[in-house]
């Protein structure tokens, strides 16, 4: 790990003043597990880390005017422990519970979950975000790709978005608030995540001089998340599905089905949402939606199985809602 400067502001204003206009001039240090790992591996170098754990205004979880406000500095454990989230946003609670381990959830933040970098083993091994070999050829499609993307890799980003909360937030139509020294802006969760087109681009809309400050989640939708994973803990999901349904009586008025860990961003399966629209949840409508969710998947040489996992994740997330468990 290269040496770096450290700053420990207690106000958002101070923190923003410490950031720069280029990545690596200064970076935000929240929970820290991800950025410190990247820096230990020397895959990423930053000249200054700005600790934001002591900024009170970034914390807190509250409901106001029918929407949930999650401070970006709230820990994943606080998310799980929040009774309102467990009751009305089981999708978020389930996604948070799936993150790594108690130790990570105790210090890892909501903002950190959204901004963490991909776990692609070529990227982490120093081959760059888009993982190209010495001859410029992409390594992933010709290499070991069992954990890689089955959707959205046409632009050359083969990694999968590692965010656990991302799919749930996209499904719930959440908005993500970003602040910089010159002001604040609000981005739809669906537009926060982007597939980068170059090694130096990022996987989110966040700019180097910005900090994620809070997430606003509208209430009123039935929602659930299902994760398929090999290990009970300390493991990344192989595929996940987050669903959010606007109900009208017993039928679905509108639905969002978002897949996780299958694409460089949370993957909105629009066809699955359409398949559910106007229908009630039954085994057959759920199966149709699950099939629709994976239409158009482009699996790589070793990850065809993830198509099936994504399909099952959608089915099981919807089934949880149908059975009243979520």
């Amino acid at each position, binding site marked *: *790990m*290269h*040496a*770096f*400067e*450290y*700053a*420990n*502001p*207690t*106000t958002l204003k*101070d923190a923003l*003043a*410490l950031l720069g206009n*280029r*990545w*690596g*001039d200064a970076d935000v*240090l929240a*929970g*820290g*597990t991800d950025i*410190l*790992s990247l*820096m*230990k*591996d*020397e*895959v*990423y*170098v*930053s*000249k*200054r*880390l700005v*600790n934001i*754990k002591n900024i009170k205004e970034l914390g807190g979880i509250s409901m106001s005017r029918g929407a949930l406000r999650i401070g970006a500095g709230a820990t994943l*454990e606080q998310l799980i422990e929040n009774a309102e989230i467990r009751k009305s946003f089981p999708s978020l609670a389930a996604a948070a519970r799936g993150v*790594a*381990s*108690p*130790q*990570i959830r*105790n*210090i890892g933040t909501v903002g950190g979950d959204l901004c963490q970098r991909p776990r692609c083993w070529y990227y982490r*091994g*120093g*081959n*760059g975000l888009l993982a190209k070999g010495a001859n410029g050829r992409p390594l992933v499609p010709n290499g070991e790709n069992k954990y890689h993307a089955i959707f959205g890799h046409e632009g050359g980003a083969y990694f999968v978005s590692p965010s656990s909360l991302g799919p749930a937030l996209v499904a719930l139509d959440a908005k993500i608030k970003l602040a910089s020294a010159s002001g604040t802006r609000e981005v739809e969760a669906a537009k926060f995540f982007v597939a980068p087109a170059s*090694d*130096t681009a990022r996987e989110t809309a966040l700019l180097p001089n910005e900090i994620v400050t809070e997430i606003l989640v509208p209430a009123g939708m039935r929602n659930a998340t299902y994760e398929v994973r090999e290990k*009970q*803990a*300390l493991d990344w999901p192989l595929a996940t599905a987050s669903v959010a349904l606007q109900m009208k009586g017993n039928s679905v008025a509108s639905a969002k089905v978002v897949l996780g860990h299958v694409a460089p961003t949370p993957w909105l399966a629009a066809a699955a949402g359409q398949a559910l629209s106007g229908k009630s949840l039954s085994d057959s409508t759920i199966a149709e939606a699950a099939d629709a969710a994976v239409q158009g998947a482009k699996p790589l040489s070793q990850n065809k199985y993830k198509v099936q996992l994504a399909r099952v994740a959608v089915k099981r997330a919807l089934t949880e809602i149908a059975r009243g468990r979520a």
Partner: protein
Amino acid sequence: MSSRKEPEVPKKTKPAVSRRGFIQGVGLGTGALGGALTGTAEAAPQSAGGAVSGPGAVPFSLRINGKTHNVTLEPRVTLLDALRDSLDLTGAKRVCDRGTCGACTVIVDGRAVYACSVLAIDMQGRQIQTIEGIGTPDKPHPVTSAFVEHDAQQCGYCTPGFVMAAKAYLDRNPNPRSEADVEAGLGGNLCRCGTYVGVRKAVLDAARDVRRGRNA
């Protein structure tokens, strides 16, 4: 280590020493450069407000096992390396060094945390508890005793981390009902020798002992 190719290095490099931080560091010189002092007087928090410290070594204080330790360390030093290399608190082990195994588990403000994945300088003002602070060989913590009774260790290198994770878990969940509860609480720790059967029993037993101790 092998240097990995193509790191994302910022294009323009400038002198990395921050004047403000450097001056602040000198001003607070404690005579503890390169080492650590244990005492009661705390160094002022490093780089409060908009100040920047480092990248060279800077003096600051850590509150560990109820004692204040004044250290002088670079910002890049993790809590784990500070504990092990500067304070000779070696119960927390460096195994994966990436927040994926739990051998370095310590308790910060009542919560289990991987010491390898937080910076020492970032832990100013926090209450840090290490395995050395919860008991001694002569007066072991009930969780430690239960681990011995159930042979929940073999080589023992993961064990202090497990004990700390178990203690943190039981402090917040004093009544685990089943082995499944324990599994959820201790999912953040890995053992290579394969001692989980003993760990499950030990944590359930320790919960009973801790409850009994509280009632006594």
